[in-house]
């Protein structure tokens, strides 16, 4: 990621405050399918402090994505509740932005117009938004591609555009649902280290869903470890790695130990679960 940027330094908001950005209490979600009821999430409890980076990790079916969608207000909970910055979670909040596994760019819009989509829908000032969009396109490394169409970009570049679209309306809380999972290893690693820089520089609160333990450890302040059937939180692990995070830290012993311990937690539960 180019380090020179014209994104306003005022954005750097040291959100060291102690207030909870996201508060999840006793959250359960049961889906009714033709095959019967599926308990996707059972009594989840945790909170994310302002400016904190928290990951939800677990195998598929552990309810991590469901949880994120409830926080985003895109899904209704069956029981319990979620508050975001003190008010109930709902869709259409300007302080919350979500990024999905697929870039979801509109093929009839250029990269710039895709990035401007939230500006239009939130009815924000277009001129100001356009300037910020161009700055962000540069920041995510897509300078000169603003008038290209999404189908003229590679998968990694499309996801960068999607990241710019997430940041353009300056949400305080970023919800990311396996944003780089569909990309190749090399691109994913690079985008992750860029995300770490973004988080550290702009101090945004991030709730990040992944099934990649190493990725979760590298990025997070805390990792919420989850298990499937029913989706439940096993444990919340503190990640005391120093900041700023650098990509070399992936190979360091402290990181490996944390990854190994989380893997053990998941693996142990699996064995126990099968034994029941």
């Amino acid at each position, binding site marked *: 990621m180019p380090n020179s940027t014209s994104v306003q330094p005022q954005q750097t908001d040291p959100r060291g405050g102690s207030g909870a950005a996201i508060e999840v209490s006793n959250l359960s979600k049961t889906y009714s399918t033709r095959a019967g009821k599926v308990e996707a999430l059972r009594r989840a409890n945790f909170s994310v402090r302002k400016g904190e980076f928290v990951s939800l990790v677990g195998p598929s079916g552990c309810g991590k994505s469901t949880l994120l969608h409830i926080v*985003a207000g895109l899904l209704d909970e069956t029981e319990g509740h979620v508050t975001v910055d003190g008010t109930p979670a709902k869709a*259409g909040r300007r302080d919350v932005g979500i990024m999905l596994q697929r870039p979801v760019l509109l093929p009839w819009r250029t990269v710039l117009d895709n990035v401007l*989509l939230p500006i239009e829908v939130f009815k924000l000032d277009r001129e100001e938004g356009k300037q910020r969009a161009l700055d962000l396109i540069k920041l995510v490394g897509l300078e000169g591609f603003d008038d290209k169409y999404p189908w003229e970009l590679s998968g990694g570049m499309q996801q960068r555009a999607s990241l710019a679209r997430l940041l353009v309306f300056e949400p305080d809380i970023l919800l990311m649902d396996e944003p780089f999972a569909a990309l190749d290893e090399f691109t994913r690693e690079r985008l992750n280290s860029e995300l770490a820089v973004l988080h550290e520089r702009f101090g945004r609160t991030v709730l990040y869903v992944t099934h990649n333990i190493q990725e979760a450890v590298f990025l997070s302040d805390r990792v919420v470890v989850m298990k499937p059937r029913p989706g439940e939180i096993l444990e919340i692990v503190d990640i005391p790695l120093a900041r700023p995070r650098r990509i070399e830290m992936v190979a360091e012993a402290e990181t490996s130990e944390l990854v190994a311990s989380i893997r053990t937690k998941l693996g142990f539960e699996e064995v126990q679960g099968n034994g029941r």
Partner: protein
Amino acid sequence: MADKVASAEPSTAVPTATAEGGGWMSRLRERGGLGVYLWPMGTLLILIGIWELLSQTEVVNPIIVPPASEVFSALVDLVQEDYFWTATWVTVQETLIGFAIGVVGAWVLGTLIGLFRFFRLAFYPLVIAFQITPRIALAPLFLTWFGFGISSKIVLAATICFFPVLIAVVVGLDNVDKDGRALMRSFGASRWEQYRKLALPSSLPVVFAGIKTAMTLALIGAIVAEFVGASDGMGVLIKTFNFQLQVAEGFAVIIALAIIGLILYGITELIENKLVFWRGH
């Protein structure tokens, strides 16, 4: 820039690259452009040659199947006649007006069905049921209702156009990307904004597939309605020539119809390519 490089280092890769680029360009143009037309043209010419030969050698009766050359000269004679152009204009008018009414009506009802539960429950099953009815069978009825003029033809053309477009609109709206909807909701988009900025453009590629089918169907509708009963039009010409055993002239009108069909389809496709430029990506 390129000049400077070339003069500073004579015989560098720069001129070679340009020449190579040109070669590729022209080869691409050949493959994409002319070849597309030349091959089917060749096939067509061979088929016409066989036709000519069979008729000239009287393997088939030339009175029933006149040779291609005779059909061609009939066509040349025909285009100099005023009544031919009057008939053509009548048929084209019926086709285009019927098409326009059918497409607009289908788009409106399809959108209502696609967006509102009430319309889906109340209308969609009826639409599907009605679609199974062969609409051509309605032609005599329309003749009774709307008379020998162009209105009965317009109504049949519109009726035949209606269904493929309606189904395409509903399917197009049903298949809007789920993640796209989630994203729009996360921005707090209203229903109208979700339709205007996401669902409508998303549905366009599918809708245009329906519209292209509708264009050809509209012409069929107009001709069939003319067969059933009309005072003017290309369908009337075909019937008249056949009754008079002027088979070559009848064939000539059919060829003119094919050309009109191609032109109308081509225009529709041009509009599609302009409007749905991202199609296939």
